[in-house]
């Protein structure tokens, strides 16, 4: 049984995440001037209410236009080096969505250690392939060559990851579909004819069916595996993990006297980090996968864990 403070903490964290979501969508508050600060979160710039930018979109776009994303990468490095992947745990709207879905889910599945260790490398592959793709397009653009190749890539040339991003599907495409239906009441018959609806939307949103199916699969997996996207597929998480690489200033420490080694911390970790094992080995929770959600701290029945700044 988890202590009462754990439930309270979950409420507080969800509230903060939701407030962050509102701030990221400051247009709804009437602040429509977009801030040019790219943040290390998976949030598409195409969201009509977005007031901040998802940094990964900026990185893709700038590299593919043969411009090095100094500022964006600088922001990523500074945040990763100081706060680690805190933004994933506290700010990212897609992280909030995953948390909410896992709260609805019936039974949590623990992925076998072998599969987990393999799958968590996939996000680095996604990151590598995306950067490789935009890098090639960027080089061709700089040399003013390969126009046919870039044209052939079409939708995928400048932001190859974005069309696959479930965050964009959820926060941009789905509201677009709902808006389309709501603003064309005379065409409500499209609801009865999904193919017609798909054809209508697909004019604006290529690979719509793939996107919806992909999102559906991910949402289903998130019911059983908390933070499935963050753990195994998110290239933003991979980039942040690369820069934080176990050395971020913010970390978690264990009070050896209080700790009864009940493993509660490891059980509640949404990223499936063997918290106790890492703490025993290193004295601090130095794991680049840690999203600093602090679930382990508040779930600990003996208050043996605390947040600390690396000296």
């Amino acid at each position: 049984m988890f202590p009462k403070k754990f439930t309270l903490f979950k409420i507080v964290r969800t509230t903060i995440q939701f407030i962050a979501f509102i701030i990221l969508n400051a247009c709804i508050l009437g602040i429509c001037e977009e801030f040019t600060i790219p943040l290390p979160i998976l949030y598409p710039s195409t969201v009509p209410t977005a007031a901040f930018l998802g940094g990964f979109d900026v990185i893709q776009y700038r590299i593919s236009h043969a411009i090095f994303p100094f500022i964006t990468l600088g922001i990523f490095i500074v945040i990763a080096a100081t706060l680690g992947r805190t933004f994933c745990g506290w700010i990212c709207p897609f992280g909030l969505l995953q948390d909410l879905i896992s709260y609805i889910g019936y039974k949590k599945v623990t992925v076998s250690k072998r599969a987990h260790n393999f799958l968590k490398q996939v996000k680095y592959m996604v990151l590598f392939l995306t950067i490789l793709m935009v890098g090639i397009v960027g080089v061709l653009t700089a040399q003013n060559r390969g126009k046919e190749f870039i044209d052939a890539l079409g939708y995928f040339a400048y932001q190859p990851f974005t069309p696959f991003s479930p965050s964009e599907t959820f926060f941009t495409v789905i509201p677009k579909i709902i808006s389309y239906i709501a603003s064309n009441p005379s065409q409500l018959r499209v609801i009865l004819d999904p193919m017609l609806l798909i054809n209508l939307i697909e004019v604006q949103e290529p690979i719509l069916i793939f996107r919806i199916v992909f999102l559906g699969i991910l949402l289903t997996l998130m019911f059983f595996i908390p933070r499935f996207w963050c753990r195994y597929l998110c290239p933003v998480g991979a980039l942040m993990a690369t820069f934080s690489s176990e050395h971020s200033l913010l970390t978690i420490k264990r009070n050896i006297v209080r700790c009864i080694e009940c493993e509660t911390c490891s059980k509640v970790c949404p990223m499936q980090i063997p918290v106790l094992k890492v703490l025993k080995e290193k004295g601090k929770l130095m794991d680049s996968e840690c999203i600093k959600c602090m679930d382990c701290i508040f779930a600990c029945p003996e208050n043996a864990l605390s947040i600390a700044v690396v000296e």
Partner: protein
Amino acid sequence: MPSEAKIWATRLVSTALIIAMIAIITAWTLTPKPTIPAGYPGSTAPKSTFTIAKVLDESNRTGKPVIMLFYDRTSNTSMMQLLVFQNVRQMYKGKSLFMILEVNTKYNGSEACEDYNIIICPTTISVLSNYTIYKRHEGLLNETMLKLFINDTLAVQEKLLTKSIGHMPSSKENTCNVGESFQPSNLIWHKRDLNDLILVREDLVNSL
């Protein structure tokens, strides 16, 4: 074990929050925005003809803004503007795309005239790579002013690239956020030719 009621309450709140997230974005999308007349800053540039569509798509692909000049060969002011435009065009080659559209002809210009609400010649319009009209100037622009006009557009285009929304049509296209609004109060009618009534800005006429 937490009680069953608590579990269901958590599920209910979580579902409500997920729906709220989508509802917030959808509601904002559906909220009526101030309408901007076609061809004015903040509105989407109409793809009136094949050539215009091609240039706008090229702009969208390359991230370069488009500077469009609507001119009438029967108007002296228009012809003066055309000369200035051609000079400046050479200076900004590679940084921006340029289009010259003659009105009152069977070609691109006359078709586009209606879509872009051209009531004065010359009219200079800048379009960003996300198809949004950023600036519109009715009347003559001397070389310095035209350079300022283009530089301003390039600066905003650069910001747009940073924001990464350059190549995708933004859903904010129809809002008033971009550029400046059209103020007709500083316009007067001037009879410049026998056949044409040309609307020019009074301050520009005085400065010439």
